[in-house]
């Protein structure tokens, strides 16, 4: 179990409390077909159109496992630095619900395909490890709609039988912030691997969150499980609310009952599920329709060989290859598309300047337009060209921002924009000197002031820049002004 991190403690009436969180994340496997049938695993579709007779659990239909789902689970296990179990077993988890036509879910109980692993999570102030307990493969259920008719529920089996990976963490998380950072990191890893699209709105990634509280150094408290939280923000809210609720109950002399709770996004609160719904007795037993899943060492090795560069590796490489700070590198590798974009921009250019542009104006522009990097109005090549214009002193940083706005609004390459609009920087000292002389002559008062207050030199710089439409080379302007006004270089 991870150490106590004092910054995360919650104040109660009787002193500080520690919140302990573990998560079970359901990640939908990216595959064409379902786990045990040849029906499509694609999201959406007309009701019951992505359904084979296997998914509808017609008598006599037998499951046949999709090899790609097995590969995806192993790839994910490798990405979680986890033990790959070359022999695993499918079990039946028995319960009744109308969107589960088999009357059981095929899952893995005693022998999961992936064992213990670890995810390193970075916050701005510190990093911590979350242990992975296991990852197993299982079937998703169908979908029930309850609001279509007063007497009936509507059932669509399109999701029934789609492959899920259940990724179970150890109780190594100590705050809502840590929980949010963990699921974000997990999602980044899954997306890098291409094993899950991580789309929480469509339900491809959802979490059951286990929360308990304890006094420092005390044994673990009784936990409550909050089911099916489907956004990162809600995970944070659910933990905050639940921890505070448990502390209040205990401090008022009550005890925590182990139970399953639901998070209500509207009120931001959790509430208990009906006790009837949690009277679980799943009576797991090995599915007699499926032999144990055995994979060879070569099968695993082949997957390992072609594993893409993972987020942690990419970050380390960005730090050493481009001399970026841990934080900058961490932001740039958050998704693979951004990392690839950055590498195109940085190639053969000043990597720090490229990082600043991407994390500043570029990300801000994407945010403002609500666009994903893959649909960016400015290409990596164009941003690179803009940086080239700055580096070769064709335009100043200030003009570059102007050009960037034009690229964003009207499109076009930076070179053409600078040419068309005559935005080239004036580096001709004679031309700048003429303007400098004019401004000095016109402002005797400020000339007097700058002798005692050298900082007011900035005012002159501003005047010259304005007079030249921002096109004068700032370094040249500075040098000329210092020389003429006899203001020494700052040390």
């Amino acid at each position, binding site marked *: 179990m991870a150490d106590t991190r004092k910054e995360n403690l919650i104040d109660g009436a009787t002193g500080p409390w520690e919140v302990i969180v573990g998560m079970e994340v359901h990640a939908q496997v990216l595959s064409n077909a379902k786990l045990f049938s040849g029906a499509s695993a694609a999201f959406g579709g007309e*009701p019951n159109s992505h*359904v084979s007779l296997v998914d509808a659990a017609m008598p006599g239909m037998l499951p046949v496992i*999709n090899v790609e789902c097995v590969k995806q689970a192993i790839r994910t296990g490798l990405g979680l630095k986890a033990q790959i179990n070359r022999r695993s077993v499918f079990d039946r988890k028995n319960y009744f619900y109308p969107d589960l036509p088999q009357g059981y879910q095929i899952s893995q109980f005693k022998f999961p395909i992936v064992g213990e692993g670890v995810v390193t999570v970075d916050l701005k102030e510190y990093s911590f490890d979350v242990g992975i307990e296991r990852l197993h493969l299982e079937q998703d259920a169908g979908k029930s709609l309850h609001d279509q008719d007063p*007497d009936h529920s*509507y059932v669509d*089996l399109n999701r029934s039988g789609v492959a899920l990976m259940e990724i179970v963490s150890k109780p190594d998380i100590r705050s809502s912030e840590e929980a949010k950072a963990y699921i974000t990191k997990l999602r980044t890893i899954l997306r890098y691997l291409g094993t899950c699209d991580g789309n929480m709105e469509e339900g491809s990634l959802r979490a059951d969150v286990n929360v308990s509280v304890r006094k420092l150094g005390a044994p673990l408290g009784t936990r409550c499980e909050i089911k099916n939280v489907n956004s990162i923000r809600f995970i944070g809210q659910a933990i905050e609310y639940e921890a505070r609720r448990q502390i209040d109950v205990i401090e008022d002399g009550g005890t925590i009952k182990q139970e399953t709770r639901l998070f209500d996004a509207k009120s931001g609160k959790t509430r208990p599920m009906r006790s009837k719904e949690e009277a679980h007795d799943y009576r797991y037993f090995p599915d007699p329709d499926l032999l144990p899943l055995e994979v060879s060492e070569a099968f695993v090795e082949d997957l390992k060989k072609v594993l893409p560069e993972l987020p942690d590796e990419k970050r380390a490489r960005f730090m050493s290859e481009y001399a970026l700070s841990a934080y900058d590198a961490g932001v740039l590798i958050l998704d693979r598309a951004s990392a690839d974009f950055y590498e195109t921009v940085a190639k053969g250019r000043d990597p720090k300047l490229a990082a600043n542009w991407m994390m500043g104006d570029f990300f801000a522009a994407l945010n403002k337009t609500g666009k994903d990097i893959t649909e960016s109005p400015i290409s990596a090549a164009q941003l690179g060209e803009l940086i080239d214009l700055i580096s070769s002193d064709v335009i100043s940083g200030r003009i570059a921002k102007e050009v960037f706005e034009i690229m964003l609004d009207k499109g076009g390459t930076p070179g053409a924009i600078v040419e068309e609009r005559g935005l080239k920087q004036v580096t001709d000292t004679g031309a700048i000197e003429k303007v400098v002389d004019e401004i000095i002559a016109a402002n005797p008062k400020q000339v007097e002031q700058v002798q005692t207050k050298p900082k007011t030199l900035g005012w002159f710089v501003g005047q010259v820049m304005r007079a030249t439409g921002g096109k004068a080379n700032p370094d040249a302007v500075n040098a000329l002004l210092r020389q003429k006004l006899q203001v020494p270089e700052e040390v």
Partner: protein
Amino acid sequence: MAKSEIDEATVRRIAHLARVKVTAEEAKSLQRELNGILSWVEELNAIPTDGVEPLTSVGGAKLHMREDVVTDGNKPAAVLKNAPKSEDGFFLVPKVIE
């Protein structure tokens, strides 16, 4: 054998989990029958099995795998054919309250 004797409450519990309605009379006879089956199966306990791997396949068969290709689906009419009630391509079931 006494150790796996099941009582009437257990019979009722199993019936409930299986969503099977059982009368008091039926429960009694089921209890008798289940205990009969269990004591018969428990004769196997006499065989020493220490260090013997559980047998999962007689012919040494391996789990067969399919390629990740969509080969099925797009037949909602067939899927819904035996449904007592359906509408707009959905199964209709008695209202399930969350």
